[in-house]
């Protein structure tokens, strides 16, 4: 698979498969192509050439069905500053087709270490709290594939442990997890398998 933006070749011949129910960590410096690869797998971006599939569904033709089974948490997290945490969750739930009941909001927020934050506007949140709120979207509906872009960024030790617990929870439920992080030490230590992207190419692989 290749992807270019104008003249810039971001992905140069990626050939990769991930076993269902396992985890993969993509590491690499900023601009190595990690986010581009995640966005292609999430069907948010088409490859310039090449093809791929998720659970037997074609990236090119089955985008809607793939998105129905996939959650993508970007580095920014798709969290709205002017809404409260509860409003963000309700909106994400309605959009995903799994409305969140009022009494479930507090439970979900407590899961990510944000008890009593339901009525706080996200604008008042720290970076770490925003990341935690973004992670809740992984729990809103049953998914087969979770794509996490820089999930450890801005998190303290407790937050990092939370991401790990979340990944373990997803793997236990049979969800495939692909995680992109430039913090190789944090991420690869926990992954079943790790790949390093360098200048758009896969240059290293480790199976743990």
């Amino acid at each position, binding site marked *: 698979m290749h992807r270019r933006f104008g003249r810039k070749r971001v992905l140069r011949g990626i050939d990769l498969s991930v076993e269902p129910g396992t985890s993969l960590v993509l590491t690499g410096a900023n601009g190595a192509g990690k986010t581009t690869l995640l966005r292609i797998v999430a069907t948010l971006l088409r490859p310039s050439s090449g093809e791929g599939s998720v659970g037997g569904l074609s990236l090119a033709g089955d985008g809607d069905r793939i998105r129905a089974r996939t959650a993508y948490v970007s580095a920014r997290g798709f969290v709205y500053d002017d809404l409260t945490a509860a409003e963000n969750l309700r*909106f994400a739930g309605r959009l995903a087709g799994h409305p969140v009941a009022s009494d479930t909001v507090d439970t979900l927020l407590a899961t990510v270490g944000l008890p009593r934050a339901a009525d706080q506007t996200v604008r008042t949140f720290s970076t770490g709290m925003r990341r935690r709120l973004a992670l809740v979207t992984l729990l809103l509906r049953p998914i087969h594939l979770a794509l996490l872009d820089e999930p450890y960024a801005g998190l303290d030790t407790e937050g990092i442990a939370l991401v790990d617990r979340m990944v373990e929870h997803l793997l236990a439920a049979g969800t495939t997890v692909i995680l992109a992080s430039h913090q190789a030490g944090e991420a690869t230590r926990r992954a079943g398998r790790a790949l390093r992207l360098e200048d758009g190419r896969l240059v290293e692989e480790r199976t743990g």
Partner: protein
Amino acid sequence: MSMAGRVAAIVWKDLLVEIRTKASFHSMLAFAALVLFVFSFAIGPDTPLLRRIAAGLLWVAIVFTGLLSLSRTYQSEEAAGGLEGLRMAPGDPRAIYLGKLTGNLVLLLALELVLFPAAAVLFQIEMLPHALPLAGIAVLGTIGISTAGTFYATLTLHLRAREIMLPLLLIPALVPPLLGAVNATQLLLDGNPFGDAALWVRLLIAYDVVFFVVCTWLFPLAVED
């Protein structure tokens, strides 16, 4: 969830953000009032002339102000990390377009609720006797502006000079609804029976239907990176 449910969710979120920040509506209102004042001051105290061109001035103010609102269509998404959060939702991506279109429509109609009475006072024209047909024309004209505007705002979303590109692309596309709305409004304000405006109303309806169908159909292509 149904398409209607996702459209409703996007409208709810956008209006909630707008109500909470009030940023867009207040600036739109101030800008629209300024446009009307500038026009009336530039033309001077010639009341008969102001009355003759009142519909044109009013709709130009609506279009200019609409551009402000339309350029902010995806502002809350950009702050949240891009359109991808909405695009990742299962289901037809056209729900995004319909939700954004409805949000823009509601905002512009709310603005017109203030702008029409303000124009009536400023240009000394009687609108009340024609309130119902005027409201119909306002709704049809605003649907046209919002339908094309939301689509062009999506097309220019990733352009570097989108603040300039949006009006450059959109204003020519808005000539038909502008013609229809200005002429139909002026005919009503001049005291002509609604029948005389029927041709312009038909133009507005035709534009709204064609642009709604085409823009909704093409949206999935427009929203791709």
